[in-house]
Protein backbone atom coordinates (compact mmCIF):
# COMPACT_ATOMS: atom_id res chain seq x y z
CA UNK A 1 0.00 0.00 0.00
CA UNK A 2 1.62 3.20 -1.19
CA UNK A 3 1.20 6.76 -0.06
CA UNK A 4 -2.01 7.25 -2.02
CA UNK A 5 -3.48 4.11 -0.47
CA UNK A 6 -2.61 5.40 2.99
CA UNK A 7 -4.16 8.75 2.10
CA UNK A 8 -7.43 7.09 1.12
CA UNK A 9 -7.34 5.00 4.31
CA UNK A 10 -6.82 8.08 6.47
CA UNK A 11 -9.64 9.88 4.69
CA UNK A 12 -12.04 6.99 5.31
CA UNK A 13 -10.97 6.78 8.98
CA UNK A 14 -11.52 10.53 9.29
CA UNK A 15 -14.97 10.16 7.75
CA UNK A 16 -16.00 7.41 10.15
CA UNK A 17 -14.47 9.24 13.12
CA UNK A 18 -16.39 12.44 12.40
CA UNK A 19 -19.62 10.47 12.00
CA UNK A 20 -18.99 8.66 15.29
CA UNK A 21 -18.16 11.99 16.93
CA UNK A 22 -21.62 13.14 15.95
CA UNK A 23 -23.30 9.94 17.15
CA UNK A 24 -21.49 9.77 20.48
CA UNK A 25 -22.33 13.39 21.25
CA UNK A 26 -26.02 12.47 21.21
CA UNK A 27 -26.10 10.58 24.56
CA UNK A 28 -24.10 13.36 26.19
CA UNK A 29 -26.54 15.93 24.81
CA UNK A 30 -29.54 13.92 25.97
CA UNK A 31 -27.96 13.80 29.43
CA UNK A 32 -27.30 17.56 29.32
CA UNK A 33 -30.86 18.11 28.17
CA UNK A 34 -32.37 16.04 30.98
CA UNK A 35 -30.12 17.44 33.67
CA UNK A 36 -30.43 20.96 32.26
CA UNK A 37 -34.21 20.82 32.13
CA UNK A 38 -34.25 19.47 35.67
CA UNK A 39 -31.97 22.30 36.76
CA UNK A 40 -34.22 24.88 35.08
CA UNK A 41 -37.38 23.36 36.58
CA UNK A 42 -35.84 23.03 40.04
CA UNK A 43 -35.80 19.23 40.24
CA UNK A 44 -33.07 16.54 40.15
CA UNK A 45 -33.27 14.75 36.82
CA UNK A 46 -31.41 11.45 36.30
CA UNK A 47 -28.84 11.25 39.11
CA UNK A 48 -28.77 7.58 40.20
CA UNK A 49 -26.94 5.67 37.47
CA UNK A 50 -23.26 6.46 37.73
CA UNK A 51 -21.71 9.75 38.87
CA UNK A 52 -24.22 12.58 38.28
CA UNK A 53 -26.35 10.13 36.31
CA UNK A 54 -23.83 10.16 33.48
CA UNK A 55 -24.22 6.47 32.60
CA UNK A 56 -28.01 6.73 32.50
CA UNK A 57 -27.97 6.97 28.73
CA UNK A 58 -25.71 3.95 28.43
CA UNK A 59 -28.28 2.02 30.42
CA UNK A 60 -31.04 3.44 28.22
CA UNK A 61 -29.20 2.42 25.07
CA UNK A 62 -28.85 -1.16 26.33
CA UNK A 63 -32.53 -1.16 27.22
CA UNK A 64 -33.36 0.07 23.69
CA UNK A 65 -31.35 -2.81 22.22
CA UNK A 66 -33.53 -5.39 23.93
CA UNK A 67 -36.89 -3.86 23.13
CA UNK A 68 -39.40 -5.80 21.08
CA UNK A 69 -39.34 -5.00 17.39
CA UNK A 70 -42.82 -3.86 16.48
CA UNK A 71 -44.47 -2.48 13.37
CA UNK A 72 -48.09 -1.33 13.49
CA UNK A 73 -50.13 -3.41 11.01
CA UNK A 74 -51.62 -0.34 9.37
CA UNK A 75 -48.20 1.11 8.55
CA UNK A 76 -46.44 0.93 5.21
CA UNK A 77 -43.44 -1.33 5.84
CA UNK A 78 -40.89 0.30 3.54
CA UNK A 79 -41.62 3.89 4.64
CA UNK A 80 -41.86 2.87 8.29
CA UNK A 81 -38.40 1.27 8.30
CA UNK A 82 -36.79 3.75 5.93
CA UNK A 83 -37.76 6.84 7.95
CA UNK A 84 -35.29 6.40 10.88
CA UNK A 85 -32.44 5.61 8.48
CA UNK A 86 -33.28 8.63 6.33
CA UNK A 87 -33.45 10.74 9.50
CA UNK A 88 -29.76 10.33 10.33
CA UNK A 89 -28.35 10.69 6.78
CA UNK A 90 -28.85 14.45 6.15
CA UNK A 91 -27.38 15.45 9.51
CA UNK A 92 -24.34 13.22 9.06
CA UNK A 93 -23.69 14.43 5.50
CA UNK A 94 -24.09 18.08 6.42
CA UNK A 95 -21.87 17.73 9.49
CA UNK A 96 -19.22 16.06 7.33
CA UNK A 97 -19.02 19.05 5.00
CA UNK A 98 -18.26 21.57 7.77
CA UNK A 99 -14.57 22.03 8.65
CA UNK A 100 -14.19 21.24 12.34
CA UNK A 101 -10.66 22.57 12.66
CA UNK A 102 -7.66 23.95 10.80
CA UNK A 103 -6.30 21.76 7.96
CA UNK A 104 -3.17 19.75 8.78
CA UNK A 105 -0.35 17.99 6.94
CA UNK A 106 1.07 14.53 7.54
CA UNK A 107 4.19 12.91 6.14
CA UNK A 108 3.30 9.63 4.45
CA UNK A 109 6.09 7.57 2.94
CA UNK A 110 8.29 10.62 2.38
CA UNK A 111 5.48 12.68 0.89
CA UNK A 112 3.78 15.58 2.63
CA UNK A 113 0.04 15.16 2.26
CA UNK A 114 -2.54 17.83 3.01
CA UNK A 115 -5.67 16.91 4.96
CA UNK A 116 -8.77 18.86 5.92
CA UNK A 117 -10.40 18.36 9.30
CA UNK A 118 -13.71 17.36 7.70
CA UNK A 119 -15.17 14.38 5.87
CA UNK A 120 -15.08 16.02 2.47
CA UNK A 121 -14.11 19.42 1.19
CA UNK A 122 -16.50 21.07 -1.25
CA UNK A 123 -16.13 24.40 -2.99
CA UNK A 124 -19.88 24.98 -2.66
CA UNK A 125 -19.96 23.91 0.99
CA UNK A 126 -22.69 26.30 2.14
CA UNK A 127 -25.14 25.45 -0.65
CA UNK A 128 -24.48 21.76 -0.10
CA UNK A 129 -25.18 21.96 3.63
CA UNK A 130 -28.36 23.96 3.11
CA UNK A 131 -29.59 21.59 0.43
CA UNK A 132 -28.79 18.39 2.28
CA UNK A 133 -30.12 19.44 5.66
CA UNK A 134 -33.48 20.39 4.16
CA UNK A 135 -33.81 16.76 3.04
CA UNK A 136 -34.48 16.04 6.71
CA UNK A 137 -38.12 16.86 5.97
CA UNK A 138 -38.35 13.58 4.04
CA UNK A 139 -37.67 11.51 7.15
CA UNK A 140 -40.52 13.25 8.92
CA UNK A 141 -42.85 12.78 5.96
CA UNK A 142 -41.90 9.10 5.62
CA UNK A 143 -42.51 8.55 9.31
CA UNK A 144 -45.77 10.47 9.34
CA UNK A 145 -47.23 8.92 6.22
CA UNK A 146 -45.84 5.45 6.79
CA UNK A 147 -47.00 5.04 10.40
CA UNK A 148 -50.69 4.83 9.59
CA UNK A 149 -51.54 7.08 12.53
CA UNK A 150 -53.46 10.35 12.40
CA UNK A 151 -51.24 12.07 14.94
CA UNK A 152 -48.16 11.12 12.98
CA UNK A 153 -49.68 12.43 9.78
CA UNK A 154 -50.61 15.74 11.43
CA UNK A 155 -47.09 16.06 12.80
CA UNK A 156 -45.54 15.34 9.43
CA UNK A 157 -47.77 17.85 7.66
CA UNK A 158 -46.92 20.53 10.19
CA UNK A 159 -43.24 19.69 9.98
CA UNK A 160 -43.08 19.96 6.20
CA UNK A 161 -45.00 23.25 6.09
CA UNK A 162 -42.88 24.69 8.90
CA UNK A 163 -39.55 23.59 7.45
CA UNK A 164 -40.21 25.00 4.00
CA UNK A 165 -41.53 28.27 5.45
CA UNK A 166 -38.45 28.88 7.56
CA UNK A 167 -36.09 27.72 4.88
CA UNK A 168 -36.88 30.96 3.04
CA UNK A 169 -35.78 33.11 5.97
CA UNK A 170 -32.80 30.81 6.54
CA UNK A 171 -31.61 31.03 2.94
CA UNK A 172 -32.15 34.76 2.77
CA UNK A 173 -30.35 35.48 6.03
CA UNK A 174 -27.23 33.85 4.58
CA UNK A 175 -27.21 36.18 1.56
CA UNK A 176 -25.92 38.98 3.79
CA UNK A 177 -22.99 36.83 4.94
CA UNK A 178 -22.26 35.89 1.33
CA UNK A 179 -22.23 39.57 0.37
CA UNK A 180 -19.62 40.27 3.05
CA UNK A 181 -17.31 37.32 2.32
CA UNK A 182 -18.05 36.58 -1.33
CA UNK A 183 -17.45 32.83 -1.06
CA UNK A 184 -19.33 29.54 -0.66
CA UNK A 185 -16.31 27.86 0.93
CA UNK A 186 -16.22 27.45 4.70
CA UNK A 187 -12.42 27.54 4.70
CA UNK A 188 -12.19 30.89 2.96
CA UNK A 189 -14.90 32.27 5.22
CA UNK A 190 -13.10 31.23 8.42
CA UNK A 191 -9.76 32.47 7.08
CA UNK A 192 -11.38 35.84 6.40
CA UNK A 193 -12.59 36.02 10.02
CA UNK A 194 -9.16 35.81 11.62
CA UNK A 195 -7.37 38.74 13.20
CA UNK A 196 -8.80 41.96 14.66
CA UNK A 197 -11.94 43.63 13.29
CA UNK A 198 -11.09 45.56 10.14
CA UNK A 199 -13.15 47.05 7.34
CA UNK A 200 -13.11 49.74 4.69
CA UNK A 201 -14.83 53.04 5.45
CA UNK A 202 -15.13 55.41 2.48
CA UNK A 203 -12.16 53.71 0.87
CA UNK A 204 -10.05 54.03 4.06
CA UNK A 205 -9.08 50.91 6.07
CA UNK A 206 -10.25 50.91 9.70
CA UNK A 207 -8.91 48.47 12.34
CA UNK A 208 -10.58 47.88 15.72
CA UNK A 209 -7.95 46.15 17.85
CA UNK A 210 -10.06 44.93 20.76
CA UNK A 211 -12.66 42.99 18.71
CA UNK A 212 -12.16 39.82 16.67
CA UNK A 213 -12.97 39.94 12.95
CA UNK A 214 -16.10 37.82 13.36
CA UNK A 215 -19.19 37.76 11.19
CA UNK A 216 -21.56 38.80 13.96
CA UNK A 217 -20.13 42.32 13.95
CA UNK A 218 -20.95 42.64 10.26
CA UNK A 219 -24.28 40.82 10.33
CA UNK A 220 -26.05 41.27 13.71
CA UNK A 221 -29.53 41.14 12.15
CA UNK A 222 -28.55 38.25 9.91
CA UNK A 223 -27.37 36.39 13.01
CA UNK A 224 -30.69 36.84 14.81
CA UNK A 225 -32.70 35.73 11.76
CA UNK A 226 -30.47 32.74 11.10
CA UNK A 227 -30.53 31.74 14.75
CA UNK A 228 -34.33 31.89 14.94
CA UNK A 229 -34.75 30.02 11.65
CA UNK A 230 -32.49 27.17 12.78
CA UNK A 231 -34.82 26.52 15.71
CA UNK A 232 -37.66 25.97 13.25
CA UNK A 233 -35.50 23.90 10.91
CA UNK A 234 -34.41 21.58 13.72
CA UNK A 235 -37.99 21.31 15.08
CA UNK A 236 -36.90 22.48 18.50
CA UNK A 237 -39.02 24.40 20.97
CA UNK A 238 -40.43 27.04 20.71
CA UNK A 239 -41.05 25.76 17.16
CA UNK A 240 -41.51 22.06 17.98
CA UNK A 241 -45.04 21.83 16.62
CA UNK A 242 -44.34 18.63 14.63
CA UNK A 243 -44.02 16.75 17.91
CA UNK A 244 -46.08 18.96 20.21
CA UNK A 245 -46.59 16.35 22.92
CA UNK A 246 -49.61 18.05 24.45
CA UNK A 247 -51.54 17.97 21.17
CA UNK A 248 -50.12 15.16 19.03
CA UNK A 249 -48.74 12.62 21.56
CA UNK A 250 -45.29 12.64 19.96
CA UNK A 251 -46.02 13.85 16.44
CA UNK A 252 -44.32 12.03 13.61
CA UNK A 253 -42.59 9.42 15.80
CA UNK A 254 -45.65 8.39 17.81
CA UNK A 255 -45.54 4.80 16.51
CA UNK A 256 -41.79 4.35 16.93
CA UNK A 257 -40.02 2.78 19.85
CA UNK A 258 -36.66 1.42 20.92
CA UNK A 259 -33.68 1.95 18.65
CA UNK A 260 -35.82 3.38 15.87
CA UNK A 261 -36.89 6.23 18.12
CA UNK A 262 -33.28 6.69 19.20
CA UNK A 263 -32.37 7.22 15.55
CA UNK A 264 -34.86 10.07 15.28
CA UNK A 265 -33.10 11.56 18.29
CA UNK A 266 -29.74 11.16 16.55
CA UNK A 267 -31.25 12.94 13.55
CA UNK A 268 -32.62 15.79 15.64
CA UNK A 269 -29.44 16.30 17.64
CA UNK A 270 -27.41 15.92 14.45
CA UNK A 271 -29.38 18.78 12.93
CA UNK A 272 -28.76 20.82 16.06
CA UNK A 273 -25.03 20.16 15.78
CA UNK A 274 -25.06 21.20 12.13
CA UNK A 275 -26.99 24.36 13.03
CA UNK A 276 -24.55 25.21 15.85
CA UNK A 277 -21.54 24.51 13.66
CA UNK A 278 -22.98 26.77 10.95
CA UNK A 279 -23.65 29.53 13.48
CA UNK A 280 -20.07 29.24 14.74
CA UNK A 281 -18.64 29.20 11.22
CA UNK A 282 -20.66 32.10 9.87
CA UNK A 283 -20.76 34.43 12.83
CA UNK A 284 -18.15 33.37 15.41
CA UNK A 285 -15.00 32.75 13.46
CA UNK A 286 -15.07 28.95 13.23
CA UNK A 287 -12.07 27.49 15.01
CA UNK A 288 -10.48 30.92 15.40
CA UNK A 289 -9.44 31.73 18.97
CA UNK A 290 -9.32 35.52 19.19
CA UNK A 291 -5.85 36.91 19.95
CA UNK A 292 -4.47 33.41 20.59
CA UNK A 293 -4.41 31.37 17.37
CA UNK A 294 -1.00 32.51 16.15
CA UNK A 295 0.62 32.15 19.57
CA UNK A 296 -0.68 28.58 19.92
CA UNK A 297 0.46 27.67 16.42
CA UNK A 298 3.99 28.85 17.22
CA UNK A 299 4.04 27.19 20.65
CA UNK A 300 2.91 23.78 19.34
CA UNK A 301 4.71 23.56 16.04
CA UNK A 302 3.15 20.29 14.83
CA UNK A 303 0.29 21.05 12.50
CA UNK A 304 -1.66 17.96 13.55
CA UNK A 305 -1.59 18.85 17.26
CA UNK A 306 -2.46 22.45 16.43
CA UNK A 307 -5.42 21.16 14.46
CA UNK A 308 -6.59 19.10 17.42
CA UNK A 309 -6.33 22.06 19.80
CA UNK A 310 -8.28 24.26 17.40
CA UNK A 311 -10.86 21.49 17.14
CA UNK A 312 -11.40 21.78 20.89
CA UNK A 313 -11.94 25.53 20.47
CA UNK A 314 -14.48 24.86 17.72
CA UNK A 315 -16.30 22.20 19.73
CA UNK A 316 -16.37 24.53 22.74
CA UNK A 317 -18.23 27.12 20.69
CA UNK A 318 -20.54 24.46 19.23
CA UNK A 319 -21.32 23.06 22.68
CA UNK A 320 -22.16 26.55 23.89
CA UNK A 321 -24.76 26.92 21.15
CA UNK A 322 -26.10 23.43 21.80
CA UNK A 323 -26.62 24.48 25.40
CA UNK A 324 -28.44 27.59 24.14
CA UNK A 325 -30.74 25.32 22.11
CA UNK A 326 -31.54 23.33 25.26
CA UNK A 327 -31.84 26.43 27.40
CA UNK A 328 -34.36 28.02 25.01
CA UNK A 329 -36.40 24.84 24.81
CA UNK A 330 -36.99 24.75 28.55
CA UNK A 331 -37.54 28.49 28.88
CA UNK A 332 -39.96 29.53 26.14
CA UNK A 333 -43.50 28.23 25.59
CA UNK A 334 -44.52 26.74 22.26
CA UNK A 335 -45.94 28.90 19.48
CA UNK A 336 -49.46 28.48 18.16
CA UNK A 337 -49.51 27.27 14.58
CA UNK A 338 -50.76 30.48 12.90
CA UNK A 339 -48.33 32.55 14.97
CA UNK A 340 -45.50 30.33 13.79
CA UNK A 341 -46.37 30.73 10.12
CA UNK A 342 -47.00 34.47 10.52
CA UNK A 343 -43.60 34.88 12.15
CA UNK A 344 -41.89 33.04 9.32
CA UNK A 345 -43.64 34.62 6.35
CA UNK A 346 -44.70 38.06 7.52
CA UNK A 347 -41.95 39.01 9.96
CA UNK A 348 -38.73 37.14 9.29
CA UNK A 349 -38.91 37.11 5.50
CA UNK A 350 -39.36 40.93 5.17
CA UNK A 351 -36.63 41.51 7.76
CA UNK A 352 -34.30 39.17 5.91
CA UNK A 353 -35.02 41.07 2.68
CA UNK A 354 -34.30 44.32 4.47
CA UNK A 355 -31.06 42.86 5.81
CA UNK A 356 -30.00 41.84 2.31
CA UNK A 357 -30.70 45.27 0.79
CA UNK A 358 -29.12 47.13 3.70
CA UNK A 359 -25.99 44.96 3.62
CA UNK A 360 -25.68 45.38 -0.13
CA UNK A 361 -26.04 49.16 0.14
CA UNK A 362 -23.53 49.41 2.99
CA UNK A 363 -20.99 47.20 1.21
CA UNK A 364 -21.20 49.42 -1.87
CA UNK A 365 -21.06 52.66 0.14
CA UNK A 366 -18.07 51.57 2.22
CA UNK A 367 -16.03 49.91 -0.48
CA UNK A 368 -16.41 52.02 -3.62
CA UNK A 369 -15.64 55.63 -4.31
CA UNK A 370 -18.71 56.37 -6.40
CA UNK A 371 -21.41 55.39 -3.91
CA UNK A 372 -24.81 54.39 -5.24
CA UNK A 373 -25.04 56.70 -8.24
Amino acid at each position, binding site marked *: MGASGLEILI*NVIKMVAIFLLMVQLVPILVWVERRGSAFIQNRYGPNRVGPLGLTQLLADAVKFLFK*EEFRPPKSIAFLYYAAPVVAIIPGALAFGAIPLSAPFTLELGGEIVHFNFQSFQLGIGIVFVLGISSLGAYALLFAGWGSGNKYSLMGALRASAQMI*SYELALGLSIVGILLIYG*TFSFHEMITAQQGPLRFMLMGQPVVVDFLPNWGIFYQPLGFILFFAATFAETNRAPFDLPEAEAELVAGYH*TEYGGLKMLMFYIGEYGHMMVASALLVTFFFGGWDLPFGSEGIREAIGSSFLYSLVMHLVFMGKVLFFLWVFIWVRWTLPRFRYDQLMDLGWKTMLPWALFNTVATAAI*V*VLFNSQGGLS
Partner: protein
Amino acid sequence: MEAIVPILVLTLIVATFGSLLVYVSSILGPKKHYTKAKYMAYECGLPGEESEKSTVSVRYYLTAILFIVFDIEILFMFPWALTYKEFIASGHGAYIFWVMFVFIALFLFGLIWEVKSKALEWD
Protein backbone atom coordinates in the same frame (compact mmCIF):
# COMPACT_ATOMS: atom_id res chain seq x y z
CA MET B 1 -17.33 14.00 -10.39
CA GLU B 2 -14.54 13.06 -8.00
CA ALA B 3 -16.01 15.26 -5.28
CA ILE B 4 -19.14 13.12 -5.14
CA VAL B 5 -17.30 9.89 -4.23
CA PRO B 6 -16.70 10.72 -0.53
CA ILE B 7 -20.31 11.89 -0.23
CA LEU B 8 -21.58 8.57 -1.59
CA VAL B 9 -19.19 6.63 0.66
CA LEU B 10 -20.39 8.50 3.74
CA THR B 11 -24.04 8.01 2.71
CA LEU B 12 -23.35 4.29 2.40
CA ILE B 13 -21.63 4.15 5.81
CA VAL B 14 -24.46 6.00 7.53
CA ALA B 15 -27.18 4.01 5.77
CA THR B 16 -25.48 0.75 6.75
CA PHE B 17 -25.16 1.92 10.34
CA GLY B 18 -28.82 2.92 10.41
CA SER B 19 -30.07 -0.29 8.81
CA LEU B 20 -28.03 -2.32 11.29
CA LEU B 21 -29.61 -0.46 14.20
CA VAL B 22 -33.08 -1.13 12.78
CA TYR B 23 -32.23 -4.78 12.20
CA VAL B 24 -30.44 -5.51 15.48
CA SER B 25 -33.46 -4.97 17.70
CA SER B 26 -35.42 -7.55 15.71
CA ILE B 27 -32.79 -10.16 16.69
CA LEU B 28 -32.22 -9.15 20.30
CA GLY B 29 -35.73 -8.16 21.24
CA PRO B 30 -38.28 -10.53 22.79
CA LYS B 31 -40.65 -12.55 20.63
CA LYS B 32 -43.77 -10.80 19.40
CA HIS B 33 -47.00 -11.55 21.15
CA TYR B 34 -50.35 -10.38 19.93
CA THR B 35 -52.83 -8.29 21.87
CA LYS B 36 -55.68 -6.52 20.18
CA ALA B 37 -55.02 -3.12 21.75
CA LYS B 38 -51.35 -3.18 20.84
CA TYR B 39 -52.11 -3.60 17.17
CA MET B 40 -54.41 -0.59 16.99
CA ALA B 41 -53.13 2.83 16.02
CA TYR B 42 -51.96 4.72 19.11
CA GLU B 43 -54.59 7.38 19.64
CA CYS B 44 -56.53 8.27 22.75
CA GLY B 45 -57.27 4.97 24.43
CA LEU B 46 -60.71 4.45 22.92
CA PRO B 47 -61.11 2.27 19.83
CA GLY B 48 -60.40 4.33 16.73
CA GLU B 49 -63.55 5.27 14.88
CA GLU B 50 -62.37 6.85 11.67
CA SER B 51 -60.01 5.20 9.22
CA GLU B 52 -56.56 6.75 9.07
CA LYS B 53 -57.01 7.01 5.32
CA SER B 54 -59.88 9.50 5.70
CA THR B 55 -59.14 12.79 4.00
CA VAL B 56 -58.22 15.95 5.86
CA SER B 57 -58.34 19.42 4.39
CA VAL B 58 -54.72 20.40 3.94
CA ARG B 59 -54.06 24.03 3.21
CA TYR B 60 -50.32 23.50 3.27
CA TYR B 61 -50.11 22.70 -0.43
CA LEU B 62 -50.58 26.41 -1.14
CA THR B 63 -47.67 27.17 1.18
CA ALA B 64 -45.60 24.62 -0.70
CA ILE B 65 -46.38 26.21 -4.08
CA LEU B 66 -45.51 29.67 -2.75
CA PHE B 67 -42.34 28.28 -1.19
CA ILE B 68 -41.06 27.00 -4.54
CA VAL B 69 -41.52 30.42 -6.18
CA PHE B 70 -39.79 32.29 -3.36
CA ASP B 71 -37.05 29.74 -2.89
CA ILE B 72 -36.05 29.99 -6.54
CA GLU B 73 -36.01 33.77 -6.22
CA ILE B 74 -33.71 33.48 -3.21
CA LEU B 75 -31.46 31.07 -5.10
CA PHE B 76 -31.01 33.76 -7.76
CA MET B 77 -29.56 36.01 -5.08
CA PHE B 78 -26.78 33.56 -4.18
CA PRO B 79 -24.64 34.01 -7.33
CA TRP B 80 -25.33 37.73 -7.18
CA ALA B 81 -24.03 37.88 -3.60
CA LEU B 82 -21.03 35.77 -4.56
CA THR B 83 -19.82 38.08 -7.31
CA TYR B 84 -20.87 41.30 -5.60
CA LYS B 85 -17.42 42.40 -4.42
CA GLU B 86 -15.87 41.61 -7.79
CA PHE B 87 -18.32 44.01 -9.42
CA ILE B 88 -17.45 46.68 -6.84
CA ALA B 89 -13.74 46.14 -7.43
CA SER B 90 -14.22 46.62 -11.17
CA GLY B 91 -16.15 49.86 -10.55
CA HIS B 92 -19.69 48.61 -11.26
CA GLY B 93 -20.89 48.63 -7.63
CA ALA B 94 -23.86 50.97 -8.15
CA TYR B 95 -25.01 49.06 -11.23
CA ILE B 96 -25.02 45.64 -9.54
CA PHE B 97 -26.80 47.12 -6.51
CA TRP B 98 -29.65 48.75 -8.43
CA VAL B 99 -30.15 45.77 -10.71
CA MET B 100 -30.74 43.53 -7.73
CA PHE B 101 -32.75 46.24 -6.01
CA VAL B 102 -35.34 45.99 -8.80
CA PHE B 103 -35.42 42.21 -8.35
CA ILE B 104 -35.87 42.49 -4.60
CA ALA B 105 -38.60 45.10 -5.08
CA LEU B 106 -40.46 42.61 -7.27
CA PHE B 107 -39.92 39.95 -4.59
CA LEU B 108 -41.36 42.28 -1.97
CA PHE B 109 -44.28 43.15 -4.25
CA GLY B 110 -45.00 39.44 -4.62
CA LEU B 111 -44.90 38.95 -0.87
CA ILE B 112 -47.23 41.89 -0.20
CA TRP B 113 -49.64 40.68 -2.89
CA GLU B 114 -49.61 37.24 -1.30
CA VAL B 115 -50.46 38.64 2.12
CA LYS B 116 -53.20 40.89 0.66
CA SER B 117 -54.75 37.98 -1.25
CA LYS B 118 -55.02 36.08 2.05
CA ALA B 119 -52.91 33.19 0.80
CA LEU B 120 -51.07 33.23 4.14
CA GLU B 121 -54.05 33.07 6.51
CA TRP B 122 -54.10 30.12 8.90
CA ASP B 123 -57.56 29.56 10.26
